[in-house]
Every structure is written in structure tokens, then in C-alpha cells.
């Protein structure tokens, strides 16, 4: 390269590099930077307190929600094993009046113990929850009459219950006999 050319390229490069770096920011850059700093510097402490407060509140809500959820599940567990027949009004009456251990027996149906499937079906059938049972609704007129009767005549009520149980047993036995006889006749036909 000739010295003249070298000089020309030096000049060209110097000029181009000067032009390359010759840039001015848009008007008001300082103001925008200062405004941004002011927005981010002043109340940062207060904002962090707010942020921590909100985070704490959110965490508490989650914890309480989980606690209620787990308690709810626990209260639902007995419903899985025993499912009272809601449509039968007589059962509802006895459930209010007497201890459920004996009297509920004829009205309840045992759910087969299938641990994986049962909780799902229980949730879907919307049965009364034991945690809230008897429900908060006021007793019906019939229930109040029965309760009043039991209160005033406990002995008679006990006798009625026993009679009812005997009657239920007799009915069950009769049903079994009918079933057995029908099976025998079927076998004989074969």
C-alpha cells in the first residue's frame, strides 16, 4: 500500500470511528433516569414490608386451607364405611331418638371394602356428613313427636324398639326361607 493510500485510509477510519461513536441520547435522558431512580429508591423499604406481609398472609391462607382440607377429609372417613339409607324416613326418626348402634343396623348397607375406589364414590353421592349430623336444620314435627314420646314413656319406647327388632328379624327369616325354597325348586327343575 502506498503511503498516500495509507494516510487516506487512516483518515477514513478515524473519521468513521468518530462518526461511529458520535451519538447523542434522546432529549430528557437525565430526567427519565432520575424519575426511574426516584420511583425505585424512596419507598422501597415500605414496599418490601408490604411484599413480606402479603407473602405471609398468602402462606397463612394456604396453611389454613390445607388444615381445613385435611380435617374435612378426616371427618368424611366414617361415611365411607357406613352409608345410611337417606330415603327411608323411619330410619331418620330412629337415628334421632336412639343410639344408632343397634337401630341403624337394618337400615344401613355395608359398602364393600375397596379402599382405592370407595372415597371417590362417597364424595360423589353427597351423603350427610357425620361431622355435621344431625344436620343443623330444625327437627320435623314427626321427629319432635317421637322424641317427646321417648322422653315421657321410655319403657314403652324400649318395648316398641324390641318388638320392632323382633319383627325385622322375623321378616328377614321369612325372606331367607322364601329364597331357600325358591332355590330348592330351581334345583329340582334342573
Amino acid at each position, binding site marked *: 500500500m502506498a503511503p498516500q493510500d495509507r494516510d487516506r485510509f487512516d*483518515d477514513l477510519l478515524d473519521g*468513521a470511528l468518530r*462518526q461511529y461513536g458520535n451519538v447523542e441520547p434522546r432529549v430528557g435522558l437525565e430526567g427519565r433516569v432520575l424519575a426511574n431512580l426516584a420511583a*425505585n*429508591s424512596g419507598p422501597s423499604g415500605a414496599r418490601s414490608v408490604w411484599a413480606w406481609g402479603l407473602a405471609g398472609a398468602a402462606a397463612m391462607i394456604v396453611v389454613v386451607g390445607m388444615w381445613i382440607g385435611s380435617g374435612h377429609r378426616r371427618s368424611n372417613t366414617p361415611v365411607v364405611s357406613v352409608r345410611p339409607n337417606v330415603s327411608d324416613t323411619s330410619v331418620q326418626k330412629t337415628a334421632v331418638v336412639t343410639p344408632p348402634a343397634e337401630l341403624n343396623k337394618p337400615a344401613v348397607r355395608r359398602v364393600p371394602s375397596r379402599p382405592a375406589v370407595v372415597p371417590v364414590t362417597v364424595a360423589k353421592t353427597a351423603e350427610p356428613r357425620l361431622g355435621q349430623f344431625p344436620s343443623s336444620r330444625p327437627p320435623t314435627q314427626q321427629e319432635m313427636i317421637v322424641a317427646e314420646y321417648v322422653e315421657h314413656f321410655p319403657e314403652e319406647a324400649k318395648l316398641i324398639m324390641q318388638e320392632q327388632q323382633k319383627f325385622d328379624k322375623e321378616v328377614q327369616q321369612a325372606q331367607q326361607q322364601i329364597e331357600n325354597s325358591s332355590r330348592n325348586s330351581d334345583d329340582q327343575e334342573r
Partner: protein
Amino acid sequence: MTERALTQNALLMTATNEDALEAAVREHSRLAYRIAYSVSRNHHDAEDATQETFMRVLRYRRKLEGVDDPKTWIARIAWRVAVEQAKRRPSVSLSETEIADAASRLRSGGRSAEEAAMSKEMAECLASLIAALPEGLRDAIRLSTVEELAPTGIAQVLETSEASARSRLFRARQILKEKLLALEGSHGTAR
């Protein structure tokens, strides 16, 4: 340290106060912007980088006691911010053909060296040539275009010795000149 730098340092050190920070913004925002622009070649990105630079100054202002020269300190922050930003955003540079086209347009007008240097074609061509340089040389030449920075300042920003910075600048200029000459030679004879 110069008297001016001492004054600036004192201003920044004493403040946590807003006046000193404001003074720093007024004095060095243009420098930060130019450094950022030398990397991004984009006004929006350069302004974003400038904002981020002073946000970092605000965040680390308590560490200012050990800072000898606030100008270099801010320049270094601006450089880091701009480089980080450039890594996140893909750069657009001209292809070989586009560079050649720009060079031919540069030559075709029958302009003087000064006119050619000022032209848009030259700016595009040079930006692409600089972008194609090796990283160390590219950084040095980019910072050299910021008029506020002398080779000492460039060395401090790049955290290297002044001799190394000067050497990088020399080599970068050599490469750029060779490439410009080659481009001109491939499209015609130099005037």
C-alpha cells in the same frame, strides 16, 4: 486522583443523599449511554442499559467509599450492563454480501474520505466489520469510539493494563484498515 474526581467521590459518598446521585446522573448519564450504544447500536437498548446502570449505582452506593474514580466506576458498570444485555439479545449484523454492497456504494459516489467517513454506508460497513473482530479487539475499539474515554479509561473498564489496551486498539485498527482496503480492492481501485 484529580480534584474533580475527589469532589465527585465525596458527593457520591455522602449521599446516600439524593443530590449526589442526581449529580452523578447529570454528569455521567451521557457517558453511560454512549458506552451502551457502542455495544448495542440501538437507542432503546442503550437507554435501557443506562437506566439499569444507575439502578445499580443506587443499589451499590454504600460501597462507594472504596471507589477512586466514580466516572470509571460508572463506565465499568455501564459496560457490563451493555454486554450482559447484548448477550441476551441477538445482534443484527450485515452479511458478507451486504458489507460488500455497502463498500461499493461507499466508493461509487466519488466522495472525499471525509464525506465517505460520514456516510450511512460507511457506518453500516464499519459496524459490521467491528462486530466481526475478535472479542478483545472489538471491546477495545468500541470503547475507543466513546470520546469521554482515553486509553487509560478503556484499560480500567476492560480491567487490563494500559499497554494491553493500546496494543488491542492498534491491532483492531490494523485489521479494520486491511478489511476496508480489501473491500475497496475487490470493487475497484482506490481513488
